[in-house]
């Protein structure tokens, strides 16, 4: 992708990023671009580092090599105050919701407003009710986080993420572990928020159908590399066997059902001779 030409439209660009944890290389010279106003999905099996990628974009982790630019700013050279200013303009939806458990739903959504603005309580109330209305949970404002179902918790977290009217939202596995109805609600919500609020959305997910239904562009990653990228149609027709296996969810293929091990027969026969 030509950076100079697309930089107008690119909100987030990840360039030649390398990141390791211990001896394990999680990303190996990976480059991704995220366009303004679009929903871009990053798909890949569990443990490939999707959450790690979001944390790199949010500046919670530092890359070994390469850079991440958000809205023209290199996230990892910013000073702390500048990074915090940038984060006020990005919302992140954690896999667990990450609601503050000692506060009601209302106070959770009001939290970023109270921390970052000096708005009077009456104004905060209007904003909180608007955001809760947008996710359809205005009536749940008195509940505590432990009284919410998983799907509701994620919608409340979403209301909190849009409280400060950010320019983009990062979603970590928004569909995982949801019942079909909550899943449908979330799919619809992400799409409509993106369009009505003019957001840029980055969705990290391994839920193939839901994600490809709303994404404008998809990156498929595995083993620290981009395996394929393009529109959902392009990915569905991908020539890569690996991508086909991932998209169709077949048990065996380039990714084996079995975790690497020595020969089954050897393993059985050697029982008792050695440790395990």
């Amino acid at each position, binding site marked *: 992708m030509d950076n100079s030409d697309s930089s107008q439209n690119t909100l987030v660009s990840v360039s030649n990023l390398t990141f390791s944890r211990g001896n394990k290389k999680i990303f190996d010279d990976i480059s991704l671009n995220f366009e303004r106003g679009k929903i871009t999905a990053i798909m890949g099996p569990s443990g490939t580092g999707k959450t790690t990628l979001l944390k790199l974009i949010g500046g*919670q982790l530092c890359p070994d090599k390469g850079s991440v630019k958000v809205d023209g700013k290199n996230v990892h050279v910013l000073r702390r105050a500048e990074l915090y*200013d940038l984060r006020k303009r*990005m*919302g992140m939806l*954690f896999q667990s919701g*990450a*609601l*503050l458990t000692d506060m009601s739903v209302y106070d959770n959504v009001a939290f970023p407003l109270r921390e970052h603005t000096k708005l009077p309580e009456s104004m905060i109330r209007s904003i909180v009710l608007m955001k809760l209305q947008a996710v359809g949970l205005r009536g749940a404002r008195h509940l505590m986080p432990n009284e919410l179902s998983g799907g509701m918790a994620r919608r409340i977290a979403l209301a909190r993420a849009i409280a400060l009217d950010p320019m983009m939202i990062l979603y970590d596995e928004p569909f995982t572990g949801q019942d079909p109805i909550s899943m449908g609600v979330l799919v619809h919500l992400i799409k409509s928020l993106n369009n009505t609020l003019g957001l840029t959305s980055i969705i990290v997910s391994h839920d193939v159908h839901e994600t490809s239904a709303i994404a404008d562009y998809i990156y498929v990653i595995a083993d620290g590399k981009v395996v394929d990228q393009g529109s959902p149609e392009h990915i569905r027709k991908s020539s890569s066997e690996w991508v086909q296996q991932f998209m169709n969810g077949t048990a065996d293929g380039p990714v084996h059902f079995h975790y690497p091990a020595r020969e089954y027969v050897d393993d059985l026969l050697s029982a008792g001779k050695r440790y395990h």
Partner: protein
Amino acid sequence: MVIELLQRLGSNTRDGFTKLGRGTRFLAQTIAGSVSVLPRPRLLLNQMYSVGVLSFLIISISGLFVGMVLGLQGYYILSDFGAEETLGVMVAASLVRELGPVVSALLFAGRAGSALTAEIGLMKATEQLSGMEMMAVDPIKRIISPRFLAGLLSMPLLAALFSTVGILGGQMVGSGLLGVDEGSYWAQMQAKLDFQDDIINGVIKSIVFGFVTTWIALFEGYDSIPTSEGVSRATTRTVVNSAFSILGLDFILTALMFGDD
């Protein structure tokens, strides 16, 4: 065998030092963050309330029983010398100098300290701390510093509560049960107890214990491995490390304070 043992010792020592380093850094950030708590006294008051409520009952009941036991034991010993009139001095000095600060700090570590570790550890495990960072809110300033200040300020108050209830307990047993003259219980205490030597030093001790215990509790939570097992281990470490620190520091402080006169 020996080499393995040495290697283990070496790596444990190194881990200990890196942890001490992280803990010191954490403490510095916490103290620096405390400045931002000042304009928001509500954060501090809420935390003092919850620390206080957690510890109030256990501290007063324990104080009462310790005072009553001191009354009994003191009476048995002092009456041998015909000095039971000085029971008040003995009870009060033991409580104010030693038992008040030490026992209330141990109870504080077991009750409030472990609860703080579990709370912070669970906030970490459920990504609430990361979530705050992503909302551009510094969890040290917002979560840790108010709790640190609350622990620091509550500890002397709780120790004072412990000693006060203990002195009353000693009086109940001494004059109520064993017939020590009530007037001399209080008069002897007032005459012999020294404000500087006894009371101030006791308060200094409890401030030091509050500082160390709260630091350990918050750091263990913040540094815990974010799983259920990790948090439970961290909670245990808080209680054990706090107890060692309190007792060790008590020896050092006592030697410094009451050593030369």
